[in-house]
């Protein structure tokens, strides 16, 4: 089995991101999956992208434009 490397983009582990950890993942070309060195997450690029969308659940105002910043 050959060594792993970086993928075409440098995806972070979505599971670790959820706990405020930025961990680069590596790509296993035989299994065609990204995997995390720190936790047990692994997934295809499609799965990573899907989980990255899920991560945004907490940003409820991510797309809102504010024009008032006080409660007066």
């Amino acid at each position: 089995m050959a060594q792993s490397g970086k993928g075409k983009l440098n995806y972070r582990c979505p599971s670790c991101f959820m706990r405020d950890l930025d961990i680069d993942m590596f790509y296993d070309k035989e299994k065609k999956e990204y995997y995390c060195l720190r936790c047990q997450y692994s997934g295809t690029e499609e799965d990573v992208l899907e989980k990255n969308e899920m991560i945004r659940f907490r940003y409820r105002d991510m797309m809102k434009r504010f024009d008032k910043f006080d409660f007066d």
Partner: protein
Amino acid sequence: MDKLILNLIHRPEMVPEYAEKVTGHGKTEDIGRKALLTESLDIFKVQQEAAHKNGLKTTIQMTYASLFNDEAVALAKEHHETYGDEIALSLLGLPCKEFRDKYKTKDFCIWMFSMEDKKQIVNDVFEKFYERFGFYPESTGSYYMDAELTNYIKEKYPMVKCAVATCWEEGPKAYHTCNNSWYTLFDGGPWAPWIPSKQNTHAPAANEAEDSGIVAIPHLSRDLIACYDGNGSNFGTHPQNVLRGMIYDSKTWEYPYLYNLIDQYRDLAKYNNGYAYNMMFVGPGWMNKMGRWEAPYELLKKSYEDGCAYYGQLKKEDKLMDLTMAEFADYYRGKKRYTEPECALWRDILYGSDKQVFWYCDPYLRACVNMDQGGAIVDLRPYAAKLKWEVGIGTKHVQDASYPFLIQEKYRAGYFTHYAGEGTVRSAKVCYNGEEVDLCLCRTKAHFSEEKDAEGKITRILTLDPVEIEFDGLTVKLQTKEYFEEGGSNIRIERKILEMSDPSAKVEINEYIVACYGTTEYPEDMSGITLEAIGDGKKESIVYEYKCREAAVAGAKEVSAVIPAIETKVSLTAKDTAAEGYIREGYAFSPMFTLGYKKTMADKEVFTTWLNLEKAN
């Protein structure tokens, strides 16, 4: 109202942070690679172009490595002539072949070197700068500038008047986010420009004698809620940080949050005598051709161009003034008094929570008041101590440059703790017939105002919307007001009972502070802290031994704690002789101390206490 002041800073970093690790993956390390040097300079050119085409001038912070590059030097000179950019000198970007050959180390953070090396490096980079440009720089900086470093620079190069001197709340949280491999541990500083004291960079100077001689600016303008809670490097006026936080639509590549963040900073002018400030400083490693994490180069570049375009648009609308760092230092000194605080009533603009906090910073203290917890103080730094805290190799704090806290709700819990013990917080409990309600559970909002007394002394006031406390058989409507008297080194808190469902009822109020000290998530040795309650003719003392003891004095004038490790005395005082002051020692599972006052209150009554901070030698 003044315009938003912008410092836009670029650095030609010949070996950008990240780039060697990321683009060089799978290759043996070679920081002299020609491809790396060329790419780095190209990124700098792209950044400069983004600024200039939007009518913005920049401060070019030359790195040591770039001083050996003729093209980088020529570009800086040309842009200074053409666009009025300031040519300054960064203490970031030290790594290069010349540096490593001379210093025989891979260290690159100026604050972590020994004092001897700091001096030698400063001499080297400043003299190299002079050799290339024929003058010495007026601005410098790093992610952190310790007081000893700044003092040396001012002594040797007195023309320096401005420096990037800290990243706000870049401490254990940033360390954690980087899998405990990013040693920028400097929590506890100001979030907006300040004049550092000679004794401690974080603590602003109270007068000319304490003035370090520079105006410090923070590295980026950070989200004052999101950064305190999460990874600081996701929430700042750094477009690629916003991408790092995944705070954008992955399909449309839109990021309104970035503009909300800038606009909220503009809004802070109303709490700061018309003045508001932004700083944007993106290292070239963030615009790597290989992309950065999930973001391809095209998105990285777009976000930077959009950021500059928004600032440019504000300038065109006459709502923004772009200054170089040296120009800003002059502006700031003309605008601010030493004791004038920085205030920020800040709302959540990302999570949809409507949470609101108030940050206050002056030469004596930095505090965070959380309206979502009834106006509790959830972070407190006792700048009054002006703690001498040397950092770097050869000192007691090689990496840890944070200013110690007395209260930090994330590192020492706050109101909520698991199973037993207490967390750090300054709040109050209201008690009736065996029931007890902490104001931390009363969510509210605050309004800001200022009051000037006959002597011209200004007090900033937070007036919280009244909250209702429901007991079995009694409802109490209570209002909190918090006063920050300029130069007072204290916070006065007033609780007023506005209304009770039974006007003849009596409730007990327990004003308290639970505190400790530290800079990280882990407990420190509390031994030797002295707690005292002092009244007329009566004094109770406890020297901390984790024995869970407590004592009280009726009519106490002061309850206090002296913490030798951080040369700080913290006290609560009250002028009401009907109040009982108490002190409480913690225990091993709860390494805290508590100071408090209990008083019986009737309808329409007001109870006032002061939280005071002093240096304890």
